C-alpha cells in the first residue's frame, strides 16, 4: 500500500484555504500536542483538508466525488468516516473546493488531479482518504489523552467517541472539538495502523446515498437550476460542420428580436444572450450564419470507415504506434498449427447524458464564479481562467450535481463559452446548449477498424496474438486493447492513427467497447472452431490468469452456464475489464429473424472490484454500465455525411428504453481483500461480444460491426 502525505505539513496544505490560524509543531510521533494556548483551535476548523468537527458533534467531510449518479459523493466520505470512526448519522457532506493541490488525488508523476473519470474515484482516493481519516482519529485521541492525562496508546474509539477502556470514560468527538487543538504537523500513520477489513463498520455496508432524497422531490441542484439576481440566459448555435467558425450572420435582425441582449462570436459558434431562455432559443432559430471552412467539410463517416480505414489497415507502410510487443509473433505465426484473422468495426457514439450541457458564470470585478456540474472542476477552473485571461486563483467553481457525465463533462468547454458571454454582457449568464447542439457538437467515442490475428500451436493453445486498430483518437482507440488477463506468450498490438478533425473524446469505457468486442469475439471464434466450451477455452487455451478464472467460474455458476436453454435462446460469454477491475459476463438472447431485432433476456456479471465500499451503489453502477452497454450495442450510432452529423435528437439517436430491459440482471462481486478498483464502467465493455457470441450460437453467423442494428442483423443473416 502506498501512503502519501504523512510528512506534508497541515499548514502547507491548508495555506490559502483561509480562516485558519496555525501554530508551531509537535513531537516526532505526532501524538504529543502542544500547549493549548499555542494550538489551532479544533472547533469547526479543518483538522485535515477533508474533515471539520463542530462542538455539537457534526462532522463535516469534504467530498471530491463529483456526483453524476455513481454515488461517490457519499462513498468517498464513508472511507474517511470509517478510519476516523465517525458516527455516520452525524456526518454532513460538503463538496470539496476546486483546488487540486489540496483535494486532488495523486496521479502519475506525483501530479494531482480532481478529474472524476474512468470510474476511478474510489480507487484513486481510497488510500489518501483512509490516511486522512486515521490522522483525524489520532488527533482526537491525542486530545482526549491530554485531557485525561493518560497514554494515548491505551485509548480506543467507537463511532463518534474516544473511550478509555480502563475506566469507561468517554468523550464525544463534539466535546473534543470544543476544547481540542490541532497540531501543525499532522500525526504520521503507518499503513499497518489502518483498520483491518474485519473491523470495518461502514465500508462494505450499504449506506443510503445522500443525494437521493433531493432527487425525488425536485430540490437537487443541477447547474441548470441555478438562478442568480440579474441573470440572463444564453444559448449557442454551433457550426453544423465541427471545426468551422462563424464568419457573419444576420446580426441586426436577430438583435431586434424580443428579449435579445447580445450576440457574440464564439470559437465554435454564435452565442445569443436574452432575458429569457425561450427568447434566446427563438433567436437561435432565426440565425442565418455563414460558416468558414473546416477540415471536416465533406466528411463521410461510413466511407472513411469502410474504405479509408481498410486501406490503412492493409498498407504495410502505414505508420503505427506499437502498444505491446512480447515474444516473437512472426515465429509463433510461422510455426502455428492454425491461424485466424478477423476484422471488426464500430461506429461513432454520443454520450447522450440527460442534462444538456450548461453552466452559469458571474463576473464581479476580478472575481469569477462558475456553477457547473463537472467531472473535472480543476479543468473547468483553468479553462475559464484561460478564456477570460485571468489567473486561476480568481475563479471559484461551485460544483453542482451532474445530470449524467459519461466522460463528456470533463473539459470546461461550455463553461468557457459561458464565461465569454458573461464578460460580454456584464451580467450573470446561464448558458444552455440545446439537445441538438449537444449532439451535433458532441465529442464522440471514435469509430474504428480492428484487425485481429491469432496463432494456435499443435496442442491447441493460443500462442500468437496480433491486434491492430485504425482510427482517430489516440488513447481513445486503445484503452482495453491489451490482454494482460490472458497469458499469450507472443503479442504484437498497435494503433494506426488517422486524423479527421471530428471531435472525439472519452465515453463510458471508450476503447474498451470496441476492443473487448473484437478480442472476445475472436476468442469465441477459436473456441467454436476447436469445439471447446468457450469458458473452458479461455481457462486453458488462453491461459486465463487466476483473477480471471475466479470471475469466469463465478459467472458460469451464476448463469448455470451448461444448462440447456429454451428453444430460440442462447448464451454468450465475454470477459470485461476496466480501471483495474475485471469481470466476466453472460447474456441470454433471442432473435426475431423477421425484424432483425435482438432481445437480451438475462444478464449475469461476476466482477472483481477489490474491496467494495458501498455494495448497493456499486451494484447500481454495474447495472447502469450494463444498460449503457446494451444501449450502445443495440442502438447507438452517430454518422456524418457531407461533414455534418446526421442525427439530431432522441428520435434518430435512439437509446435504450424500458421496453428493451432484460427481464433479469444479476451482478455479483467476488470476495477479495484488495484495494478497490473502478466499477462504473465494468458493466459496459463485455456486452458486445457476449451478444455476438450468443448470436453465433443461435444462427451460426458472426456480428462484426457495432451497433447491431436490425438492418445489420438482417444483412448478417443473409450473408
Amino acid at each position, binding site marked *: 500500500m502506498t501512503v502519501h502525505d504523512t510528512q506534508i505539513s497541515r499548514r502547507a496544505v491548508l495555506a490559502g484555504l483561509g480562516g485558519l490560524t496555525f501554530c508551531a509543531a509537535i513531537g516526532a510521533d505526532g501524538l504529543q500536542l502542544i500547549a493549548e494556548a499555542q494550538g489551532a483551535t479544533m472547533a469547526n476548523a479543518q483538522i485535515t483538508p477533508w474533515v471539520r468537527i463542530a462542538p455539537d458533534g457534526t462532522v463535516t467531510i469534504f467530498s471530491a466525488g463529483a456526483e*453524476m*449518479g*455513481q454515488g461517490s459523493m457519499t462513498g468517498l466520505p464513508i472511507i474517511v468516516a470509517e478510519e476516523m470512526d465517525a458516527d455516520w448519522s452525524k456526518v454532513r457532506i460538503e463538496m470539496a473546493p476546486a483546488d487540486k493541490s489540496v483535494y486532488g488525488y495523486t496521479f502519475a508523476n506525483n501530479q494531482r488531479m480532481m478529474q472524476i473519470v474512468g470510474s476511478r474515484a474510489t480507487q484513486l482516493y481510497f488510500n489518501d482518504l483512509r490516511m486522512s481519516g486515521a490522522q483525524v482519529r489520532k488527533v482526537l485521541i491525542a486530545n482526549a489523552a491530554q485531557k485525561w492525562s493518560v497514554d494515548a496508546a491505551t485509548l480506543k474509539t467507537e463511532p463518534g467517541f474516544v473511550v478509555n477502556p480502563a475506566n469507561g470514560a468517554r468523550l464525544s468527538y463534539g466535546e473534543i472539538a470544543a476544547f481540542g487543538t490541532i497540531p501543525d504537523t499532522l500525526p504520521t500513520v503507518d499503513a499497518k495502523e489502518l483498520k483491518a477489513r474485519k473491523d470495518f463498520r461502514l465500508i462494505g455496508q450499504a449506506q*443510503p*446515498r445522500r*443525494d*437521493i*432524497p*433531493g*432527487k*425525488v*422531490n*425536485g*430540490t*437537487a*441542484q*443541477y447547474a*441548470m*437550476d441555478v*438562478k442568480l439576481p440579474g441573470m440572463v*440566459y444564453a444559448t449557442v448555435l454551433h457550426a453544423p460542420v465541427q471545426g468551422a467558425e462563424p464568419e457573419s450572420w444576420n446580426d441586426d435582425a436577430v438583435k431586434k428580436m*424580443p428579449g435579445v441582449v447580445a450576440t457574440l462570436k464564439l470559437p465554435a459558434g454564435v452565442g445569443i444572450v436574452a432575458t*429569457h*431562455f*425561450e427568447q434566446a*432559443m427563438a433567436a437561435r432559430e432565426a440565425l442565418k450564419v455563414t460558416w468558414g471552412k473546416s477540415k471536416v467539410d465533406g466528411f463521410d463517416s461510413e466511407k472513411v470507415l469502410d474504405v479509408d480505414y481498410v486501406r490503412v489497415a492493409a498498407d504495410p507502410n502505414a505508420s503505427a504506434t506499437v502498444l505491446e510487443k512480447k515474444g516473437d509473433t512472426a515465429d509463433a505465426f510461422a510455426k502455428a498449427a492454425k491461424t485466424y484473422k478477423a476484422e471488426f468495426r464500430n461506429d461513432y457514439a454520443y454520450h*447522450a*447524458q*440527460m*442534462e*444538456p450541457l450548461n453552466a452559469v458564470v458571474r463576473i464581479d470585478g476580478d472575481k469569477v464564479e462558475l456553477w457547473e456540474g463537472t467531472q473535472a472542476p480543476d479543468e473547468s477552473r483553468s479553462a475559464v481562467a484561460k478564456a477570460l485571461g485571468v489567473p486561476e486563483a480568481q475563479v471559484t467553481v461551485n460544483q453542482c*450535481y451532474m*445530470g*449524467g*457525465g*459519461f466522460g463528456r463533462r470533463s473539459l470546461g468547454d461550455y463553461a468557457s463559452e459561458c464565461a465569454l458571454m458573461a464578460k460580454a454582457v456584464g451580467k450573470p449568464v446561464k448558458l*444552455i446548449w*440545446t*439537445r441538438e447542439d449537444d449532439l451535433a457538437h458532441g465529442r464522440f467515442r471514435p469509430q474504428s477498424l480492428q484487425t485481429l490475428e491469432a496463432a494456435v500451436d499443435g496442442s491447441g493453445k493460443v500462442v500468437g496474438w496480433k491486434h491492430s486498430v485504425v482510427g482517430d483518437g489516440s488513447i481513445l482507440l486503445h484503452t482495453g486493447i491489451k490482454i494482460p488477463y490472458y497469458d499469450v506468450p507472443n503479442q504484437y498490438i498497435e494503433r494506426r492513427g488517422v486524423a479527421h478533425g471530428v471531435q472525439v473524446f472519452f465515453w463510458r469505457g471508450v476503447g474498451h467497447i470496441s476492443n473487448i468486442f473484437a478480442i472476445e469475439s475472436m476468442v469465441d471464434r477459436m473456441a467454436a472452431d476447436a469445439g471447446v466450451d468457450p469458458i473452458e477455452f479461455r481457462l486453458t487455451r488462453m491461459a486465463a490468469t487466476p483473477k480471471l478464472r475466479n470471475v469466469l467460474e463465478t459467472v458460469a455458476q451464476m448463469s448455470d452456464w451448461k444448462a440447456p436453454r429454451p428453444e430460440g435462446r442462447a448464451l454468450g460469454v465475454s470477459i470485461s475489464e476496466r480501471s483495474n477491475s475485471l469481470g466476466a459476463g453472460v447474456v441470454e438472447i433471442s432473435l426475431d429473424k423477421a425484424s432483425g431485432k435482438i432481445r437480451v433476456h438475462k444478464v449475469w456479471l461476476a466482477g472483481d472490484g477489490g474491496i467494495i465500499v458501498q455494495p*448497493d*451503489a456499486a451494484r*447500481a453502477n454495474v*447495472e*447502469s*454500465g*450494463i*444498460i*449503457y452497454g*446494451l*444501449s450502445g450495442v443495440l442502438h447507438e450510432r452517430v454518422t456524418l455525411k457531407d461533414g455534418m452529423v446526421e442525427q439530431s*435528437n*432522441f*428520435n434518430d439517436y435512439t*437509446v*435504450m*428504453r*424500458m*421496453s428493451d*430491459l432484460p427481464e433479469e*440482471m444479476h451482478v455479483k462481486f467476488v470476495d477479495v481483500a484488495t484495494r478497490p478498483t473502478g466499477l462504473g464502467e465494468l458493466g459496459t465493455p463485455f456486452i458486445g461480444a457476449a451478444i455476438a457470441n450468443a448470436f453465433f450460437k443461435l444462427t451460426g453467423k458472426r456480428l462484426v460491426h457495432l451497433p447491431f442494428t436490425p438492418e445489420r442483423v438482417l444483412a448478417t443473416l443473409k450473408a
Partner: protein
Amino acid sequence: MVSFTVNGKAVSSDADRTTPLLWIVRDHLGLTGTKYGCGAGLCGACTVHVDGTAVRACQTQLSEIEGKKVTTIEGLSPDSSHPLQKAWIAEQVPQCGYCQSGQIMKAAELIAAKPKPTRSEIIEHMDGNICRCGTYHRIIAAVERASREG
C-alpha cells in the same frame, strides 16, 4: 395574460402565449424540479400533470393551460411522502437523478389510475421516459413497491 394554478397556487403569466410550459415553470416560476432534456417531446424529463394527466411540458404551450391545474414534482407531496417518492428512496432508484422528476410524475399518473399495475403495464406506461443511467429495473421495483405499500 394566462391564468392557471400550479401546485394549488393561482398564478398568471404575461409571457408570450406560445412559450413552452417548461420554461414557464422553471424560469418564470422557479420550479426547477421539472427538467429540460430534449425540448422535442422525446425523453419525458419535463413531465408534469395538467388536470391530472401527464404531459410533456416542453410540448405544451402557455396558452393551452388557461384555467388548468398544473402539478409539478414540487407539488406531488409537500414532504416527499407520496408513496412513489418513498419507494424511490427505498429502492435507491436515482443515479444522476435528472430524469427522475419526470419518471415519478409519469408513474404517479399510472398508479392514480391503476393502483396495482402489472410489470408489463408499468413498462408500457413508462416507455416514453428515458433514463440514461439505466435505472429502469429499479423504477419498476419502486412502482411495484409503491403499489404494494401505498
